[in-house]
C-alpha cells in the first residue's frame, strides 16, 4: 500500500466520521427501500417521534443516558488498549447490585442515603465483573475480548438464577424481583418538575442523566488531566515504553477495566432504579453492544460520546415510533443501522481516508 495518509486534523476528526456515518445511514436507507418503504417518510416519522414532542424527547434522552454509560465504558477500556465487549454483563451485574441493596435496605433508609448507596452498589458490582477478566488478562494472559464475552453469558445466567431461585416473590409466576420501596427509586424528571410546580409529560427520563453527564466530566478529567489516566493511556498506546518508564502495565489494565466496568454498571441505576423499580431479566437489552457503536462513533472522547449517544437515543425512540406508524416496519431496523455504523465507523473507518487524502492533495495542489 502507499505511505500512510496524512490528513489535516479537521478532516480526520470532523469530516471523516460524518462521512462514515452518512454511508452507514445510506445503506440503512437502502434496506428501508428494499422492504418497500420510503426512507424519507421513515426519517420524518423517526425525527418527529424522537424530537417532535417533550415526551418523545424525554424518551430519547432516557435512552441516551444508558448509551452514555456504556459508551464511556468502552472508551475508557480502549484508551488502555483493551476492547471491553463485556458492557452487557457488567451492566447486568450493576442492576443486580442495585436490586440487592434496594431490596435489602430499601424500606429502612430515606432516599438521600439510599440513592448514593445504590450508585455505589451499581458501580461496585460492574467493577467486580470487569476486574475479573482484567485480572485474568493482566496476570494470567487470557484474552480480554473472549473472557468478557464469556462473562456476558455468565452474568445473564447469574441474573436468571438469582431471580428464579432467590429474588422472585413466593407464588409469583413472572421472573422479576419484588418492587423496590419508594426511597430506592431514582426520581423521574417529570416528578421533580411537578414538585417545583411545572408540568411535564411523563417519561422514563430520570436523574441518572445528570449522573451520566458527571461521569463524562469525570472520564475527561481522568484520561487527560490525571496522572493515573496518563499512565493508562501510556499503556494503551505503547505498553513497552510505558513499562520502561516505570509504569506497571498490569495495574493499569486492572484500573482501566475497573473504571470501565463501574461505568457500565451504572446502567443499572438508569434502568433498574430509575425506570423498572424491580430487577428483571435481560433489562440491558443490547445496550452494552450499542456502547461499542457509540464509542467508535464518538472517537472515544466524552464529547463525541454524548453526541453519539444522543444520535442513538433518537434512533431508538424514533425507531419505536416508526414501527407503530408504518406497516411491516420493525424496530430491529435500528439494530441493523447500529451494526452498519459499527461496520463503517469502526471496522472500515479508514477505508475512505486515501480518497480524502487524494481530494485534499488535489485541492491544495490546484491552488
Amino acid at each position, binding site marked *: *500500500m502507499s505511505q500512510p495518509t496524512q490528513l489535516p486534523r479537521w478532516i480526520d476528526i470532523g469530516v471523516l466520521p460524518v462521512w462514515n456515518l452518512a454511508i452507514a445511514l445510506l445503506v440503512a436507507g437502502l*434496506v428501508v427501500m*428494499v*422492504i*418497500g418503504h420510503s426512507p424519507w417518510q421513515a426519517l420524518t416519522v423517526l425525527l418527529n417521534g424522537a424530537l417532535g414532542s417533550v415526551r418523545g424527547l424525554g424518551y430519547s434522552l432516557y435512552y441516551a443516558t444508558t448509551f452514555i454509560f456504556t459508551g464511556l465504558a468502552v472508551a475508557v477500556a480502549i484508551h488502555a488498549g483493551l*476492547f471491553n*465487549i463485556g458492557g452487557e454483563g457488567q451492566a447486568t451485574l450493576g442492576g443486580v447490585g442495585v436490586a440487592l441493596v434496594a431490596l435489602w435496605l430499601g424500606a429502612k433508609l430515606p432516599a438521600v442515603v439510599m440513592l448514593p448507596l445504590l450508585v455505589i452498589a451499581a458501580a461496585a458490582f460492574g467493577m467486580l465483573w470487569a476486574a475479573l477478566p482484567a485480572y*485474568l488478562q493482566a496476570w*494470567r*494472559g*487470557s*484474552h480480554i*475480548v*473472549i*473472557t468478557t*464475552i*464469556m*462473562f456476558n*453469558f*455468565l452474568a445473564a*445466567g*447469574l441474573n*436468571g*438464577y438469582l431471580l*428464579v*431461585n432467590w429474588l422472585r416473590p413466593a407464588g409469583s409466576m413472572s421472573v422479576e424481583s419484588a418492587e423496590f420501596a419508594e426511597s430506592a427509586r431514582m426520581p423521574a424528571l417529570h416528578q421533580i418538575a411537578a414538585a417545583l410546580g411545572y408540568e411535564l409529560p411523563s417519561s422514563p427520563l430520570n436523574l441518572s442523566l445528570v449522573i451520566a453527564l458527571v461521569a463524562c466530566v469525570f472520564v475527561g478529567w481522568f484520561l487527560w488531566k490525571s496522572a493515573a489516566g496518563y499512565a493508562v493511556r501510556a499503556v494503551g498506546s505503547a505498553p513497552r515504553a510505558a513499562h520502561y518508564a516505570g509504569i506497571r502495565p498490569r495495574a493499569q489494565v486492572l484500573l482501566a477495566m475497573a473504571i470501565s466496568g463501574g461505568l457500565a454498571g451504572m446502567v443499572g441505576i438508569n434502568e433498574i432504579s430509575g425506570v423498572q423499580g424491580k430487577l428483571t431479566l435481560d433489562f440491558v437489552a443490547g445496550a452494552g*453492544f450499542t456502547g*461499542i*457503536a457509540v464509542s*467508535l462513533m464518538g472517537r472515544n472522547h466524552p464529547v463525541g460520546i454524548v453526541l453519539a449517544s444522543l444520535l442513538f437515543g433518537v434512533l431508538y425512540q424514533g425507531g419505536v415510533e416508526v414501527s407503530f406508524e408504518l406497516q*411491516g*416496519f*420493525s424496530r*430491529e*431496523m*435500528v*439494530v*441493523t*443501522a*447500529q*451494526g*452498519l455504523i*459499527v*461496520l463503517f465507523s*469502526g*471496522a*472500515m*473507518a*479508514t*477505508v475512505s481516508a486515501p480518497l480524502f487524502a487524494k481530494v485534499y492533495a488535489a485541492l491544495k495542489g490546484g491552488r
Partner: protein
Amino acid sequence: MDEVLIASVLASTLRVSAPLLLCAMAGVLSERAGVIDLGLEGKMLFAAFAAAAAASVTHSTGYGLLAAVAVGCVASLLHGFACVTNRGDQVVSGVALNMIAAGLTVVLGIAWFQQGGQTPPIAPDVRLTAVAQGFAEPQPGSWFASVFGHGLLSHNVLVYVAFLMVAAVWFFLERTRPGLRLRAVGENPAMVEAAGMSVQSLRYQALLMNGVLCGLAGAYLTLAQNASFSPNMTAGRGFIALAAMIFGKWKPLPTMGACLLFGFLDAVAIRMQGVQLPGIGEVPVQLIQALPYILTVVLLAGFIGSAIAPKALGKPYVKER
C-alpha cells in the same frame, strides 16, 4: 430403563453438537489463517434465515441449503473486505456482523412474511429428516435398537455431514499442502509472502470455507432442528462454538471433543432440572448451562493446560515494500 436414558442423551448430544461442530470448524479455518471470527453467531443467524426463507418460498431443500451457504459466504467476504483488504479491526468487524444479522433477519422477516419475524413453517417433505427410519423413539428392553439405533442412526444427514467435516478439516489442515499454507499464513504471513504466495488470497480462501460451514450450521437450525426461523434463534450457539474452538486449542479433533462435551452438558441440563444428586443436592440449570463459558475462562487463564492462539491471529498483514 437405563438403555432409554443413555440412548436419548446420546441422541440429543449428537443433535445439539452438530451445528456447534460445523460452526466451530468454520472458526478453526478462519482463525488458523489468522483472521479472528467473532461473527460466527451472526453468520449462522443469517444462514438460518436464508435457508428458512428460501426453503419455504421455493419449497425445495436444495435451494434452502444453497441460499444458506451463499449468504454465509457473502457475510464472510464482507468480513474479509473489512479486515483483510482494508486491514480494519477484526473484532469490531465481527461484532458489526452480529448486530447486522440480529437486526436485518428480523427486519426482512417481518417485511416479507408478516409473522412477527418468523418464517412460514417449512413443509415436512422439504425438511431434512432421519436417514434411517424406525428409530425415532428409544425402545425399552432392547439395548441395540435403543443405543445404536436411536442414539446413532436416528439423525438427519447434516449431523453426519458435521462429523465428516471434522475429518475433512483435520485432513485438510494436517495432511495437505494448501492446509499447511493456511496454517502458515496464521503463524507467519511474512514467510508465506516470501515463499511467493498471496497472504490476502489465502485468507480469503479460508474465509470462503468458513462461510460454507457457517451456512451449513445455520441451515441445520431451520431445515433440521426447527421447522421455521424465529428471531435470534442461534441464541449464543456461535459463541459456544467459539468457546469450543478455544477449548480445543484451535485444533479440529480437540475442538470436536469440546463441542461434544458442550452438547452433552446442554443435553443433560434439561434432564437435571429438579434432580437431587447424592451429596450435592440440586444443581441449578443455569450453572450447567454456564459450564461451557466457565470451562473456557478457566482454560484461557491457564489453569488447565494452556490455549495458544495462532501467532498472527488478529494482526492485519501489511505487505513489505
